[in-house]
């Protein structure tokens, strides 16, 4: 078998050269460090069932402003380590006393981890056209180690969600997911994502989620009046 549920300290392999993340080597043997799913394809690694987000340079994440100091915004990035967004990393030149005008306590941002030093000082930036403050939509949280599952092997899972719910979905490496769209679509997208998180370790996930979504949309058709145009309209709901 190429996948197994393991606990910390469980023996995985006699070949230390195969040891990858989630493992440690002792006495020339490889053991698991976490409670999670061990995979043995090529290298030996364990994906934890739970765990905090530890930032790496290059990660695109979603943060919330928690403090404004003289020249930095301190950002909650859902990690034991706060992110620091220096005033110079804001896309426009602004004055120090204007900082709260642009980003204040409680504001959400899509940001990039520029650098993480040896002391775990995390520097963020907004200097990239992909990045921005977030003013609409919803943000939900999932386990950071399960993020790849959402992306699917070739982005297929997220493409499926986007198409079927007609929502824009951004998955932050820190396990925060931003969704924008019409209310019905967002509700369905969120329900699907939470289902993926709960069942991420069970095979056949893509099919199950596809069925789940189709069923949810099917139900909506039954509920609405028969004169409605089609699935798209049902999902989008009435324009107010």
């Amino acid at each position: 078998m190429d996948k197994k549920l393991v606990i910390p300290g469980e023996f995985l392999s006699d070949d230390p050269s195969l040891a990858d993340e989630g493992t440690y080597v002792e006495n020339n043997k490889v053991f698991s460090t976490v409670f999670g799913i061990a995979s043995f394809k090529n290298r030996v690694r364990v994906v934890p069932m739970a765990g905090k987000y530890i930032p790496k340079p290059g990660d695109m994440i979603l943060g919330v402003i928690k403090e404004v100091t003289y020249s930095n915004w301190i950002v909650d990035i859902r990690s034991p380590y706060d992110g620091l967004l220096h005033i110079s990393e804001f896309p426009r030149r602004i004055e120090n006393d204007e900082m709260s005008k642009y980003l204040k306590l409680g504001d959400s941002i899509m940001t990039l981890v520029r650098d993480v030093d040896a002391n775990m000082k995390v520097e963020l930036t907004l200097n990239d056209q992909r990045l921005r403050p977030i003013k609409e939509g919803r943000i939900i949280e999932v386990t950071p180690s399960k993020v790849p599952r959402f992306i699917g092997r070739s982005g297929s899972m997220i493409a499926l969600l986007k198409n079927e719910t007609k929502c824009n979905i951004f998955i932050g490496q820190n396990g925060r997911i931003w969704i924008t769209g019409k209310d019905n679509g967002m509700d369905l997208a969120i329900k699907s994502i939470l289902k993926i998180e709960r069942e991420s370790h069970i095979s056949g996930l893509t099919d199950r989620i596809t069925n789940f979504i189709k069923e949810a949309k099917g139900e909506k058709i039954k509920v609405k009046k028969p004169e409605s145009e089609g699935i798209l309209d049902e999902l989008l709901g009435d324009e107010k």
Partner: protein
Amino acid sequence: MSKPEKLIENGIRLDGRKPDELRPIKIEVGVLNRADGSCYFEFGGNKVIAAVYGPREVHPRHQQRSNSAVVRYRYNMASFSVEDRKRPGPDRRSIEVSKVSREALEPVIFQEYFPRSAIDIFVEVLQADAGTRTAGINAASIALADAGIPMKSLVSACAVGKIDDTLVLDLNKDEDNYGQADMPIAMTPDGNITLIQMDGHLTKDEFKEALEMAKTGCIAIHEMQKAALTEKYSAQMEGENNE
């Protein structure tokens, strides 16, 4: 209850157990929402709940360590957990238990993965019946795993004692009160002892035998800890073969 005539007769203890028998254990994993990891653990008449928060920011900041996480352990008994109501708040005993329990778990935690952070372990005793510290350590191990904290292995704990000159595993309250020795230990599955305390009277040979008995108990407990963690997920994973 005043001291019984005998604590063990014909190899059977007052609660019906044989000398090397553990009390019944019930384990529930992930019972709390707000904690990062949690475990409810029943060990005979003991009911404890362990919660782990971390790694997280260190407060107060001066406790921060630049190159590793700081592990903190708080063992606390609820006022209603014992016969005579206990005043709330830490007393000298809880502080000592917290210290040795932390020292029992620290060696297995990969603290260096999380500099400048804290891994906080909280153990609340809701009902006490001798062996709360070992129940706490068992529960804390599981809660750490549930929180995704990287460790070398789980830690398992139990106590051995002597009653009526017989070595027995896992003392209950009466055996602890009226017995001749009490020795809690904690160990990792590869046989390294991370906690050992003792009070009472044991000869050198009795001690060696007691240690072996405790190790057997710990190994049995480790199997139960592993089962509790995996049972939630393993049934669902049948047939996992791609992705």
